[in-house]
């Protein structure tokens, strides 16, 4: 079976599950949950760095979604709808804690200045040497606004227009924040690698 046909089959299966869930089928709800739980939970976990908080947010996101499933008309992909819900839930949590979220204006420096590359300076390349654990730790060290955009784009694979809609910023802002996030991660990973090299 080709990838396209498999994707179409998956979408039809999901559409069937959604219709069954609308009629109150418990198994359909559970199947939808199992299809999407990892991505939602991973996003929440990387934003909160706390398993208990991530599980609470995951539960909240799914409950909000399932309570509104009767209104889902299929205009957008179900996963996008779900992730939008998850992002909203996470953003509300950040705001409750008084943490900065993504600045609406791309010209505002709502977070620390992104590291600038010295013109002409040459660093050893990271390619081929990025440790998964170090990357996860570096992502956790990012400011929340950078982290959200980076997770949605580079980890979850959303386009900037989708991210802009989810988060409530402009496409330009989304691109700018993503670039700053990557530059910051580059700096953190190089620092981490240098520290590792100097350890006895």
């Amino acid at each position: 079976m080709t990838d396209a046909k498999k994707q179409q089959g998956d979408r039809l299966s999901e559409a069937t599950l959604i219709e069954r869930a609308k009629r109150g089928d418990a198994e359909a709800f559970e199947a939808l949950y199992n299809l999407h739980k990892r991505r939602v939970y991973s996003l929440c976990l990387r934003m909160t760095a706390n398993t208990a908080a991530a599980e609470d947010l995951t539960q909240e996101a799914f409950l909000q979604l399932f309570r509104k499933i009767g209104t889902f008309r299929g205009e957008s992909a179900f996963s996008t709808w779900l992730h939008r819900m998850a992002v909203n839930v996470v953003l509300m949590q950040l705001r409750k804690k008084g943490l900065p979220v993504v600045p609406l204006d791309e010209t505002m420096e709502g977070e620390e200045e992104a590291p600038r590359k010295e013109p002409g300076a040459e660093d050893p390349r990271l390619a081929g040497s990025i440790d998964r654990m170090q990357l996860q730790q570096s992502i956790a060290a990012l400011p929340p606004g950078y982290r959200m955009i980076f997770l949605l784009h580079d980890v979850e694979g959303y386009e900037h227009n989708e991210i802009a809609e989810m988060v409530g910023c402009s496409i330009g802002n989304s691109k700018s924040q993503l670039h700053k996030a990557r530059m910051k991660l580059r700096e953190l990973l190089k620092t981490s690698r240098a520290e590792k090299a100097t350890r006895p």
Partner: protein
Amino acid sequence: MTCEEFERVLPELEGGHNTEQEAHLKSCSACSGLVSDLNAISQQARLLQGSEEPSPWVWNSIELALRQDGLIHQSSRERARALAPLLSWKLRWLVPLAAVFLVAFGVLIRQRGTVQPPVSVATETGSIQPTETVAMASEDQQLLNTVAARMPSMRAAYESNLLAVNAYIRDAEQSAHSNPNDEVAQQYLMSAYEQKAMVYEMALDRSLP
């Protein structure tokens, strides 16, 4: 193009680079190293997608909340399953009652020596062979033969179960045919079939070595 100019447009360069940018990358190892690093970070990040799993209690909590909200309704299968325990108590009592009845007749046979049990006789192997058995379907016989081959001591118990559940199915079928619009009669019939399926499942599971 200078390095500063290149870095200024870098956030916009997702789809690729134009000729000028390509030329700068070929000539500037620092900028090409930067692009290479940022791409490597992006590619490695994609591997992190959906790599964590929440604990099972998350779904349990969601399901509980949905049931409390009334958003989860019982399917017909769940209703039949809910009925099954209610109806299966009848079957559960049939088997031990049948066993007590047979043992009592066995005792009477030994004591009086003349009374023939109307339902069963004890065989040489000690298993109970019903004399008034209704002819069993071939698949029931095959199941009993399978059980007998794996655990002979269990054959008699499953034969009793099958007799009882077949009688239950006959009654339920008669009732459903007589009352085709009666939903309860239809559910009883579904439950009877499920009971038989359970007997098969138990027989095959428990007789496995």
